[in-house]
């Protein structure tokens, strides 16, 4: 046993073992790199990304301006403006502000929403060069933000 160990040591077996591992991994099948703008990752269904406000089939907002999301938000970044409709005595959403720059994407607003109108969607390219533009307006949340697609 001792002799075997000594021989292993002299012939640098341990080092060759390590070398063989790195050598084996050069096989092209082992590559895991994703070339991002060309290959885009598939995000899962539950992914929490860009916030969206959903409309019903007629294009009318589902939001009832109840303010549950604003209350639930740990960062208090949701601003809701509403007016009471004099006829139906219901609150009507006038504006909806969402500051993505401060958002943690914890999903608490989504959970609090009784009508499931606010959701954290699947878009994940939220980076901007400045902080302006991070505060999303209602129409941006409803229609989504066209992002510039970089190809190269």
């Amino acid at each position, binding site marked *: 046993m001792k002799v075997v160990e000594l021989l292993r040591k002299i012939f640098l077996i341990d080092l060759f073992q*390590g070398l063989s591992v*790195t050598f084996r991994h050069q096989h092209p099948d082992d590559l895991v790199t994703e070339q991002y703008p060309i290959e885009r990752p598939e995000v899962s*269904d539950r992914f*929490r990304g860009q916030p969206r406000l959903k409309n019903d089939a007629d294009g009318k907002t589902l939001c009832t301006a109840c303010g549950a999301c604003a209350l639930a938000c740990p960062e208090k970044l949701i601003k809701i403006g509403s007016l009471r409709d004099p006829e139906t005595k219901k609150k009507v959403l006038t504006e909806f502000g969402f500051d993505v720059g401060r958002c943690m*994407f914890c999903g608490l607003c989504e959970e609090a929403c009784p009508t499931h109108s606010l959701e954290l969607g699947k878009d994940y390219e939220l980076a901007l060069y400045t902080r302006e533009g991070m505060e999303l307006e209602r129409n941006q949340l409803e229609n989504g933000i066209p992002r510039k697609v970089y190809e190269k």
Partner: protein
Amino acid sequence: MSDKQFYESLDEVEPGHTFLGSNELVLNMGPQHPSTHGVLRVILKLDGEKVNGLECVLGYLHRGIEKVAESRTWTQFAPFVDRLDYTAAVSNSLGYCLAVEKMLGVEVPKRAQYLRVILTELCRLASHQIWLGTHLLDIGAVTPLFYTFRDREYILNIFEKYCGARLTNHAFRIGGCRWDAYEGFSKEILHLCDDLLPKIDEYRELITGNRIWLQRTKNVGYISVEDCRSYSITGPVLRASGVCWDVRKAQPYSSYEDFEFDIPTGTASDTFDRYVVRVEEMRQSIRIIRQAVEGLAEGPIIAKVPKVIKPPVGEVYVSIEAPKGELGYFIVSDGSAQPYRVRVRPPSFINLQALEKMSKGSLVADVVAIIGTLDIVLGEVDR
């Protein structure tokens, strides 16, 4: 400014203050340094290459999370704890939820408990993989970092599918889980377990027998059992010194008593033993995950908790075995909807204190190895 003026201005800052012998060299490692794992700053006092003393300067990542808690509701604070130890966000989340549940006296449904076990053990795997990669990188082996990060990516994919986020998951809610297992959850996890085991063997083949690795880690960073006690060291560092203590066994939480697993211990209490202990822990985690997936019963995933959580007046201390050690939450409630005080017992912070003890008299290269072996995350140290 001429050189003379410059040195004179130094004297003005610290009049007559010298903490040096004439042949001591002060080396300022960090806060921006490749191997201080974030923004730890270590001031080394060197005699040539030998470390005569060192001092840690903390707080470069201090975000005042304990203060933040005082102005959030109990539910709202949950996403913040993920930002403590961001390599093991799920563990933090579990600890906090358990603490609040204990205060409320809520019994979490079995299925939720098992889901929690599966996710925290996956998270332990992910955390240990980061540790392994970065630790080896500190010692100079570049390649294992990529292998471990590749494997961690598969775990993060499962997190993403389960709860929609990869790193700071906010996976659990007070009273149970927010999401049920997605379709194909069990199958995917069992498959992952089968895949990971040979990969752990691969790390071993690459490094465990390697003479350079052995020389760099054996007898480096020794700490005695008595010192471990005195420094309140927990987690793999404690277990490598031969103390078989793990919160999961000592004070089981979240159904850990249902599972069969061993607690790996070391004997030499050096960097190499800690490596062995952690790698073995990865195997044990896989074992637990397999049992939990098989035992996953149907049922509710969240207990009945009021919408606005108002725990009774009182205080509890609840701790779990996070990948880094014992992660404790000491929470005080005044009966309102907001925490009165949330104190986190951060394992990294407390383990890091032993750095000075462990590295005195060793070489500069060893300090780097010891920082790696302590497995600190600065998000948790500085909070």
